[in-house]
């Protein structure tokens, strides 16, 4: 098994903003080792989040190649990309992105059920519930299971988002400014949770941040400036 978990080669990505093209990524090359905690630092608008979206298969690059766990993601069909997002990649967003109609428990277990058919549903749902309960207990949310996201604090919401990202035990955890909306104490808590899973389970963690102090917790820091890695 290769030691490389993520291999980004010569990735370009641009967006159309009105009448002008915004060239966000300009030939990014990046390799992330299995189990590594990598911080991608850079100023706002440097292309950090876009890079994370490309790695997380939420967006397609205009040019360049991407390999996750040795598998090329370039020619995958939409359903294969969805499958890879489901089982191999976990996402933690700055704004949590929880489903407002679902309570804490449902928000976490739904991530394990997106690929379950009718016949496997009962067994899988029970398993998802057990896993979600375990994770939420671990993250200190055992007493908030029936609460809806609007009734939680920012830190609690982010912990729910982390639980959701981890429930499928993904190989890669991508965190986009996970503490950006939190105070420093809560941010510190969240970071320690992420580091805990990175260390304990050996998950590859890619964290995007503009906060230098946060980035310093990573095994390695890469800096993105104007769409290029410095």
């Amino acid at each position, binding site marked *: 098994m290769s030691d490389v978990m993520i291999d980004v080669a010569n990735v370009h990505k641009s967006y159309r903003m009105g009448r002008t093209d915004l060239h966000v990524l300009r030939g990014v090359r990046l390799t992330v080792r299995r189990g590594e905690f990598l911080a991608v630092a850079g100023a706002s608008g440097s292309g950090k989040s876009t890079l994370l979206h490309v790695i997380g298969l939420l*967006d397609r690059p205009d040019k360049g190649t991407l390999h996750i766990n040795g598998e090329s993601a370039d020619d995958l069909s939409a359903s294969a990309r969805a499958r890879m997002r489901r089982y191999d990649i976990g996402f933690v967003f700055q704004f949590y*992105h929880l*489903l407002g*109609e679902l309570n804490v428990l449902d928000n976490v277990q*739904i991530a394990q*059920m*997106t690929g379950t*058919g009718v016949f496997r549903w009962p067994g899988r749902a029970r398993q998802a519930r057990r896993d979600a309960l375990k994770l939420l207990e671990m993250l200190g949310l055992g007493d908030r299971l029936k609460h809806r996201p609007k009734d939680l604090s920012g830190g609690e919401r982010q912990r729910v988002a982390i639980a*959701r990202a981890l429930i499928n035990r993904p190989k890669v955890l991508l965190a986009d400014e996970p503490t950006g909306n939190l105070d420093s104490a809560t941010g510190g808590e969240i970071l320690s949770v992420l580091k805990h899973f990175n260390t304990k389970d050996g998950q590859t963690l890619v964290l995007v941040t503009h906060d230098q102090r946060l980035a310093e917790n990573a095994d390695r820091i890469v800096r993105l400036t104007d769409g290029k890695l410095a």
Partner: protein
Amino acid sequence: MYKLFLCLRYLRRRYIAMVAIIGMALCVFMVLVVVSVMNGFLGLVENAAKGMMGDVVVDAAAEPIAYYDEFIGLMKAKLPDDILAATPVIYSYGLLRIGPEYTQTVRVIGVRLPEAAAVSTFTEGLYPPQLKASPAFAVPASMRKELLARLGTYRTRIDQLQSIINDRSEQLAAEQEKDPARQDKWLIGTLERNIANANSQISSIRRLYGYDEELPGIILGVDIPGTTVRDEVSGSYTRYVEVGQKVQLMVIPTGRTVTALTEPVKKRFTFVGDSRMGIYQIDSGSAYVDFDTLAELIDLGPRPDADTGQVDPGRCSQIQIKVKGTDNETHLRAVAEKVRLLWEQFSADRGEADLLARPTVQTWREKQSQYIGPIEKQRDLVTIMFAIISLVAVVLVFAIFYMMVVQKTKDIGILKSIGASSGGVAVIYLMYGSAVGLVGSVIGAVGSYWFVRRINPIHDWIATTFSWRVFDRRAYLFDQIPNTIQLEVIAGVVVGAMLAGLLGAMLPAVRAARMQPVEALRYE
């Protein structure tokens, strides 16, 4: 399966879904109520139209139909597999006089009882029940005894009046025998008035109230104005004319020839019961008398020629036929055609071309097309109009779903980020649309079933509470709003509503499915 899970959560927690469900339920309710009432209305018209005249009708063309009994006999003999029963009918007009004051124009219909019972539903609407049980133009036997007793009461009253007359007459004679100078003029005047009054009363009783078994019977439509009062809420009638009471009918004998010198003919009848066909226009203007009596009255009966000794045959306006077997229109048309051909043969065999002018032979539906046709068209038109209006439901669902998908764009991004496929996301919204359609249409169907079944009590409540009567039987023919709702109509409308929900959700669902996850997540 998570799609159903999410769909149910969205249904339970989104107020907008409730709005869509209510909108859908109202549309289904509206369409079902209108279609059911219109269908019921048409059904009533068809049943009434068919019931009134049997399955096939032979109608007089230029001249009334002669040799009708011979033709009926011929039909039964030549078409034994097709003809179940047949009866002649005469239509005319007359002036009905009830009591000293009330007069009403009526359509006078001459029918043969109980023969007509085998052909039309006329006898089913007869009242009192004794008359319905043994239809005839005579007071039912069970009521005759009571009437004779009442006749005795009238006789007693006449006797009393007669004794008053005798007494006053004696007093008057005694007074008049006196010397004119000693006569009491006031007393003479009073006695004369008393005698005249008593005579008048006797005359009235004899003319109006006395039950006369010799007089022919007449059946009156229950809604003839002035003869009954109907309680609009309970539907019960209070009749001012009692069974056994005499009424007078005045007709013009227009049967064979009419000249400026033709005089109206008056005849007294005994009222024997009501006819309740259930159609206001018929029940409010029809009087039924015995076929032969009417034929004689309006000069349509057989008439012997004094010079030649030959008998000019009796005539009728119509021959009503009850057909054997199925009553579907195709079969009835085939039988009507056989009857027409048989008439041509009958006419040719008899060789009396003038007398046997070709009548029209129609099925009941063809005959009543002038009534049924417009109602059918009206129903179709209203259904089309409401189908168009129901498109509002599709547009409503579409608008709501589109808005919801726009609102939930971020959810789409979230779901895709945790591994939901594009198809899966589309299915969530399609399921949502179908669920809104299903729940909305089931609520609408149940509501409309409840409403239609109770439409008459609800209408009566509105009428009594707010003095506002929407359904006037004078305008809508029937005294009750049709309250039947057909299961196949419910099924059709529910399926249509579900398809509408699905269709309304289709485009938003496709849009949701096509959305790039990152594009959805960035959506503000």
